[in-house]
């Protein structure tokens, strides 16, 4: 029977986690706003560098993107620093307009394509999720299996082999592995050189179209998998070694249980807890991996948008993409915390 106290604890734990995620998101939003106004490449100058524009046209564009308003109370501009009126209506400042737009789900208009940033990011988000989940699921399954086997066969050739290859995989720059696999795959295995679908192809059926997408997914997914296997294997191995040296394993062994049974029913369960945290923390790196892999394989996802926005100095786009990437990582961490408390009642009870 669950007592009232425990439920209260549970509530407080969840509330604490939610409040913490919210605070981090607010920090990211504020950082995202001010970074783009404090650092020298400010949007107004960078986006409007075209010398063919008349002064009037520049003013019109500034007004269209709301850049003529003061940044925040007391400051007309942060770079170059211009002190302004402190008594200005806060609702008329760039900061307030930015935040209120965000709350309505608007991320501004792309300088480059003149379309709402939200629409472009929304189209691309699913491609990234497809790519990331395929790679993550494979690397988690393979990495955990390798880690279990390496820990079981500790200090044998199997263990050393798995250990060394994991360290090498960990040291590979993601983009370079992508380039090498792309080189080999497109030259010798007839795999597509990038993109999501064969350009200009006409598909007989949805099934054919999906087959084409799957062919384009092969190389990026292999890259993703190799990059992440190493870390998952190393952590699984050391967690397993810890768990396998505990007394209850000796008890199970003394009861005459088979090694496989002990691994499966006793050790694996207890080793999965730390993995949940690691997988969530890794999502930050997953985002970094997505940017590199999508750039190398021209995969039309968030990472590619982000990279293209840098080259085009498309600041609303860059800002929007950064916000979406950061918030997804924060949410993933929150999800992991909640999952962790669900899996391990000790955490919940405080």
């Amino acid at each position, binding site marked *: 029977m669950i007592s009232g106290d425990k439920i209260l604890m549970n509530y407080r734990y969840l509330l604490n986690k939610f409040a913490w995620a919210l605070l981090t998101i607010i920090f990211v939003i504020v950082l995202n706003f001010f970074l783009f106004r404090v650092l020298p490449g400010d949007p107004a100058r960078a986006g409007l560098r075209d010398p063919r524009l008349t002064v009037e046209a520049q003013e019109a564009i500034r007004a269209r993107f709301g850049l003529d308003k003061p940044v925040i109370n007391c400051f007309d501009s942060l770079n170059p620093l211009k002190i302004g009126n402190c008594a200005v209506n806060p609702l008329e400042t760039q900061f307030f307009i930015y935040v209120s737009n965000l709350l309505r789900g608007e991320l501004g208009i792309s300088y480059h394509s003149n379309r709402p940033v939200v629409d472009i990011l929304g189209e691309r988000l699913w491609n990234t999720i497809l790519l990331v989940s395929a790679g993550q699921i494979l690397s988690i399954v393979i990495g955990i299996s390798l880690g279990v086997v390496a820990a079981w066969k500790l200090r044998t050739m199997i263990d050393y082999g798995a250990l060394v290859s994991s360290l090498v995989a960990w040291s590979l720059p993601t983009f370079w592995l992508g380039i090498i696999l792309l080189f080999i795959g497109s030259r010798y295995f007839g795999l597509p050189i990038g993109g999501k679908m064969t350009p200009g192809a006409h598909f007989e059926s949805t099934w054919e179209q999906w087959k084409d997408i799957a062919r384009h997914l092969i190389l990026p997914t292999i890259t993703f998998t190799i990059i992440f296997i190493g870390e998952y294997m190393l952590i699984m191995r050391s967690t397993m070694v810890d768990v396998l040296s505990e007394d209850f394993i000796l008890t199970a062994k003394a009861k005459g249980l088979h090694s496989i049974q002990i691994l499966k029913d006793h050790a694996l369960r207890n080793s999965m807890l730390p993995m949940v945290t690691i997988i969530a923390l890794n999502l930050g790196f997953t*985002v970094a991996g997505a940017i590199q892999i999508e750039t190398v394989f021209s995969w039309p996802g968030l990472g590619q948008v982000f990279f293209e926005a840098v080259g085009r100095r498309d600041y609303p786009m860059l800002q929007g993409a950064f916000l979406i990437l950061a918030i997804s990582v924060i949410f993933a961490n929150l999800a992991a915390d909640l999952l962790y408390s669900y899996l391990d009642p000790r955490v919940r009870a405080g």
Partner: protein
Amino acid sequence: MQSQITVSGFGGFWANLKQNSMGVFGLIMVLMAIGMALLAPWLAPYDPNAPVKVTIDDIYAPPSPEHWLGTDDAAKDVLSNFIYGSRVSLTVGFFASFISIFIGGAIGIMAGFLGGRVENGLMRLTDIMLVIPDLPLAVVLVALTKPSLLNIIFVIGILGWTGTARLVRSQTLSVKERKFVLRAKAIGAGQFYIIRRHLLPLVLPLMVANTVLVISLAILNESTLSFLGLSDPTTLSWGQMLNFAFTRGAMSAGAWWALVPPGFGIVWVVLGCTLFGHGLEQILNPRLETHHLAVGEEMVAREDSRMTPGEIVELT
């Protein structure tokens, strides 16, 4: 009789390292890379900055006796670029990680030593930084400032300190409660005196091991930023070489010699640092590596850490 588990001074440290073959291997790999960077002008067959006369056949020319690793998109010798490229990658790696270690160390010691609100605030800041994805933030920061080597070092440095801060804090917390620190406090030693005389000597070794690992991350980050075209195009690093090769048709020209060596260099240095760093960690923070299901082993102390009766063991 002197036991083998004692670590005292450099000699003891070296004796321990020699037993750790992965650590030695990593150290050799790192030293070779540093040697190549220092001796670049003597090792490289051509000067990468010297102008060359170019005909169409010289661009992406395959390996030949004149150019062991062929030529790149500007008909420059890939081998010479590779040798000189190690200089930039290593410089960025070292300086950026020094910044990270300094910030992380200061935050970790302050949080662990001062405790209370300071600790709470600093660790919350660390948690926030840990969650924000590094690479996108680095890309934004570099894109908004001028793309120069100094900016890259700075950006990588100020984003890479979170791991160090957590490590140093937990180490500080454990040292803080030791008897000799409490005694020093009781006889009225000042905070800075305790940090300098008692805390740093015990926290520093772990920080050194951590530095080596942070260097490998910094080198990976530098190569990624350069590959994405965010570095100064006039400084030749391995990531920059890959950027040029990838964006200027090495793939379609089939010029594997322009794509393989720079990546190989990065893997070499990063793997070397990783092996060396893990080796150092194992020495400073030894763990018993065995368990109940291990093949052919009983879970007892290893031969070298067994003591004979009456033996005097120096504990440091």
